[in-house]
């Protein structure tokens, strides 16, 4: 994590370039997909899926950071987990908001409670909000350990929730797990650009959030040195 400051600029520039590329590919280059009832609304796919990917990535990082913190006891793993959880919840919120926008156009309803994928994403979102509530604002050693334990339990709970839905019912389109290739190569390229763009954005946000933590600690240290609170 001890990379030079200029590195942040490179990450941000990459994110910016790829976001522009995604916008171009999604809105201009790709023709309207007439397989869908609402071809214009289908364009949200290039935003929705990468954002969903980033939220899963972020929650995975929370799990890894929590496990590493419990194993090694090093503080910086805990800050990584916390920062990642915040970003993950933000991106998961975007997933939950953009989904119904598309659903309203395509399915004519905003939400389908019977759809496994939708409800599990919702549960995931709730679990990590609970994680953030547990973390609260305080920075005590105790809190970090408890949050790490919950971060691990929460992450394990998600696949369990998936299994527990008796009828594996989902009309949500499949992106990754299709063998028949429902996604054309060109659309896949647009999607890949989006995934790369948002992954860079995630990295940038994570590094900035960690920097803020670091500065906070420094301020606290300075305050203590001059005898303040």
């Amino acid at each position, binding site marked *: 994590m001890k990379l030079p400051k200029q590195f942040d600029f490179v990450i941000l520039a990459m994110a910016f370039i790829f976001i522009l590329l995604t916008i171009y590919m999604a809105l201009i280059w790709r023709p309207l997909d007439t397989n869908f009832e609402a071809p214009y609304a289908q364009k949200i796919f290039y935003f929705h899926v990468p954002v969903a990917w980033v939220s899963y990535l972020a929650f995975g990082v929370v799990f890894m950071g929590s496990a590493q913190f*419990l194993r090694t006891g090093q503080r910086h793993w805990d800050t990584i987990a916390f920062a990642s959880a915040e970003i993950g919840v933000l991106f998961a919120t975007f997933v939950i908001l953009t989904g119904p926008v598309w659903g309203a156009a395509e399915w004519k309803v905003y939400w389908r409670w019977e759809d496994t994928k939708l*409800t*599990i994403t919702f*549960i995931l979102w*709730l*679990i990590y*909000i*609970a994680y953030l*509530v*547990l973390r*609260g604002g*305080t920075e005590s050693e*105790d*809190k970090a*350990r*408890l949050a*790490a*334990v*919950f971060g*691990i*339990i*929460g992450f*394990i*709970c998600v696949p*369990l*929730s998936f*299994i*527990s*839905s*008796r009828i594996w019912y989902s009309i949500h389109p499949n992106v990754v797990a299709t063998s028949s290739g429902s996604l054309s190569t060109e659309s896949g390229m647009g999607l890949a650009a989006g995934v790369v763009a948002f992954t860079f954005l995630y990295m940038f946000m994570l590094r900035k959030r960690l920097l803020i933590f670091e500065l906070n600690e420094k301020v606290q240290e300075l305050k203590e040195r001059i005898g303040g609170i």
Partner: protein
Amino acid sequence: MMPQAITIAQKDIKTEFRTREMIFSMVVFSLLIIMAFRFAFEFYLEESTAATVSEEVLPLVSPILWVTFCFAGMLGLLTSFAKEKDRGTLDGLMLVPMDRSAIYFGKVLSNFFLILIVDIASVVFFSLFFAFDYTGNAVPMFAVILLGTFGFVVIGTLISSISVNARGREVLFAILLIPLILFTILLPSITATSLALEGRIMDAQVELRLLGAFAVIYIALGYLMFNFVLEE
């Protein structure tokens, strides 16, 4: 480890029955929840006669029962560690030269026992308030309740030990626990209980197997994680 866990469970149950403070409030709370549901469904059940009421109530039974178990049970789970913490006896337990997870398993056993009493009370209250007859399906229904409650207690005790150290633990406990059990415990339990009441318990094999599997996974999680929670 198991004998120590049983000793801790016995200690908990003994202290509880000396005052009967917690079990009493849990039973009263479950009574109030069932009563609230009775009045909430008053409009729906207004027209029903003694002959038809059982049929009309049938779809309501397992959701109402499980919501009651869940909330009344949470009251008990919440205090199982909070009491120890407030009296300063948790430190005493931690000083005992034994595997820390014995504390966890002891708490699981005592909570399971107390919540089962509340479950039975709720089932009785339900049949009184809704004039519902369990006729012949009571045994499979209790089997499902036993299994579901066990899973609920296993994860609930672990979360209780986490939230007890945090600020505003009462609210936090509910926020942490409900998303975790929604799909893994509540949904399979409600489906299986409904099937049991319809006399089709054999159709609920998937749910029962899931409940069993989740209980095992949550026990493993509790065993692995509890040391980290208490570490001081």
